[in-house]
């Protein structure tokens, strides 16, 4: 692959890089400007909400504090009868250290028309499938905004046409996804990028249509007494890129993301019995090189009203398994996750989640995190996050971010 890269005209590559860099930074600023203009000129019919976020991350490896600022405004309009609605959600972040993290995105711009048991949507949307907490195997519609958060929970808006029907036999969603969003990776200066960073400026595709390949997906879900069941099928561009190691124009080692074509069948089941949530997610995927399956199975049990007080304490245990031959592509190939959730149910909505993941194949690989949040007054919220990584096995992808331990303190203002 390195050989083919040598023939790639380097001046075009440089131009493309510059253009993309310019685009990502200036689109962020432009979006912030539009946000301000838009919010002041909207008619009263529009329902508005959103937040401003000030974050400070401390990376232990290089003893640096990285301040960053973000805004996520939302607008919503619906016709009088409620049969037509338009939902918009924009996002923009400025990061003082990582140019790639200074980015903007249309998270949602979706028009939906409802008629009886049918729903028709077009635009940019966000969809979530699944039941488990430590891994989201079946969730595939939206690309991960990895630059936004290391846990992969943040997603990019996905252009889509969607038809939904709710029948007595269940809900059925049909998706046509006409444009593919590439994964956003942290820049080289960000410890979370690892020693060899993925580039955001040069991607390779299996399909000749590249990002214009039209993907399709189908999702069925139904609940029967204690059970909630989801069945999914996806055919199109893999959201999870393979890595092509190469060197950039400066001679530095980088990884090119390669997006192949896949088909993926998924199932999710949750049984909700008293204070037990029993969960299962599994996929079978055929990509350009192999067919494999993966599963996440586990439970969550909550002790409600401890000592007859308002406090709840929940415990989570999940096991992740993935049998793809190239082990380096998944860090959750044989891993156990345990977590504890502390909810005092107070007026300030305090929440605390502790998590620990342990790799059963590579004994020295662990990940631990704390997520704590509390509302201050009516409009502010403070969030404390800590993530600690450790890996001694070069085969485990976790190795790449071993030195990215961080603590973050975030203050959010909601309107």
């Amino acid at each position, binding site marked *: 692959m390195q050989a083919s890269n040598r023939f790639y005209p380097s001046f075009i590559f440089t131009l493309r890089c510059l253009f993309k860099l310019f685009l990502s930074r200036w689109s962020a600023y432009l979006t912030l400007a539009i946000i301000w203009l838009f919010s002041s000129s909207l008619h009263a019919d529009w*329902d508005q*909400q959103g*937040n401003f976020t000030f974050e400070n991350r401390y990376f232990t490896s290089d003893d640096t504090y990285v301040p960053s600022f973000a805004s996520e405004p939302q607008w*919503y309009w*619906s016709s009088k009868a409620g049969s037509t*609605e338009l939902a918009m959600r924009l996002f923009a972040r400025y990061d003082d250290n990582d140019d790639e993290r200074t980015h903007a995105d249309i998270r949602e711009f979706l028009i*939906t028309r*409802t008629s*009886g*048991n049918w*729903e028709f949507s077009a635009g940019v949307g*966000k*969809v*979530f499938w699944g*039941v488990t907490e430590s891994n989201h195997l079946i969730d595939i519609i939206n690309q991960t905004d990895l630059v936004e958060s290391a846990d992969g*929970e943040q997603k990019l808006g996905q252009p889509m046409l969607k038809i*939904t029907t*709710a029948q007595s036999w269940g*809900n059925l969603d049909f998706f046509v996804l006409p444009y593919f969003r590439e994964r956003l990776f942290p820049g080289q200066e960000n410890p979370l990028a690892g020693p060899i960073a993925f580039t955001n400026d040069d991607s390779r595709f299996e399909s000749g249509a590249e990002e214009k390949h039209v993907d399709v997906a189908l999702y069925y*879900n139904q*609940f029967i*007494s204690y059970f*909630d069941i989801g069945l999914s099928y996806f055919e199109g561009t893999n959201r999870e890129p393979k890595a092509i190691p190469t060197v950039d124009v400066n001679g530095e080692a980088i990884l090119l993301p390669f997006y192949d074509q896949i088909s993926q069948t998924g199932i999710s089941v*949750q049984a*909700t019995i*008293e*204070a*037990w*949530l029993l969960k299962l997610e599994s996929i079978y995927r055929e990509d350009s090189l192999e067919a494999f399956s993966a599963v996440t199975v586990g439970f969550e049990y*909550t002790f*409600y*009203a401890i000592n*007859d007080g*308002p406090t*709840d304490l929940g415990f989570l245990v999940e096991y992740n398994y993935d049998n793809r031959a190239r082990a380096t592509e998944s860090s959750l190939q044989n891993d156990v996750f345990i977590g504890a959730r502390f909810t005092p*149910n*107070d*007026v*300030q*909505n305090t929440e605390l989640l502790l998590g620990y993941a342990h790799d059963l194949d590579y004994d020295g690989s662990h990940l631990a995190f704390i997520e704590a949040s509390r*509302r201050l007054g*009516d*409009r502010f*919220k403070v969030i404390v996050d800590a993530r600690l990584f450790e890996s001694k096995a070069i085969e485990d992808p976790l190795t790449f971010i071993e030195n990215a331990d961080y603590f973050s303190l975030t203050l*959010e203002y*909601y*309107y």
Partner: protein
Amino acid sequence: MNIFYKACALILFLNLSVADVFANKTAEQKGLEIAIEMEKRDRGWGDVSSSISMYLKNRKGAVSERSLEIKTLEIEGDGDKSLSVFHEPRDVKGTAFLSFSHALKPDQQWLFLPALKRVKRISSSNKSGPFLGSEIAFEDMASFEIEKFKYEFLREEELDGEPCYVVKFYPQYKHSGYTHQEAWIHKNEYRPEKTDFYDRKGDLLKTLRFSGYQKYLDKFWRADSFEVVNHQTGKSTQLLWKNYVFNSGLSEKDFTQNALKRAR
């Protein structure tokens, strides 16, 4: 003689216990009859939507506000279906809650988290948990079904000049935070005026007062205000109901997971 005394004692004992059983049965019977009448008079409203404002006051008097919209669909022969959407505080705006309540079977409940667009089926075992951090528990907001309680009629009593039955309610569903409740039920209108809640130790926990009753569709009484005072913590919650709209044509399709995702 010995035998005679024993026989007398036995007869006395039996008599007493028979009388006891009889007296209890009447109190139970009467309590049940009041509950049945109360349930019967509140049948046939179809669907209703309204806005709720809540004011949570701590012991020092600091107030925190909540607001939400709630839609409810009456289901014949089962518990109601309801869909709530939170508006205040702003950090939870758009969070929505779908509940299919049942008399003794566990309720089915789903939560929609708008930031992740995730629908989560949640356990309904947290019946005694505080609703949005308030003094109102989830079970206090649940729809009233006869089978949920056993009843005991206590007495007739005037409350603020209104004639009331005082009836004990013993929860029969699992995970209740109460040993029992004592409800003052209006003798003519069969609507609750006041409820005292007793915790799992049997101590008085809180008092709920209903006020501002209005009649809708010429038949159904709805209170404009619920006020709960927790006697053990000194905290209180006032819940105001606004904009009651009955029979707006809601149906089962407005209470699905798709409707939950669309709720604003």
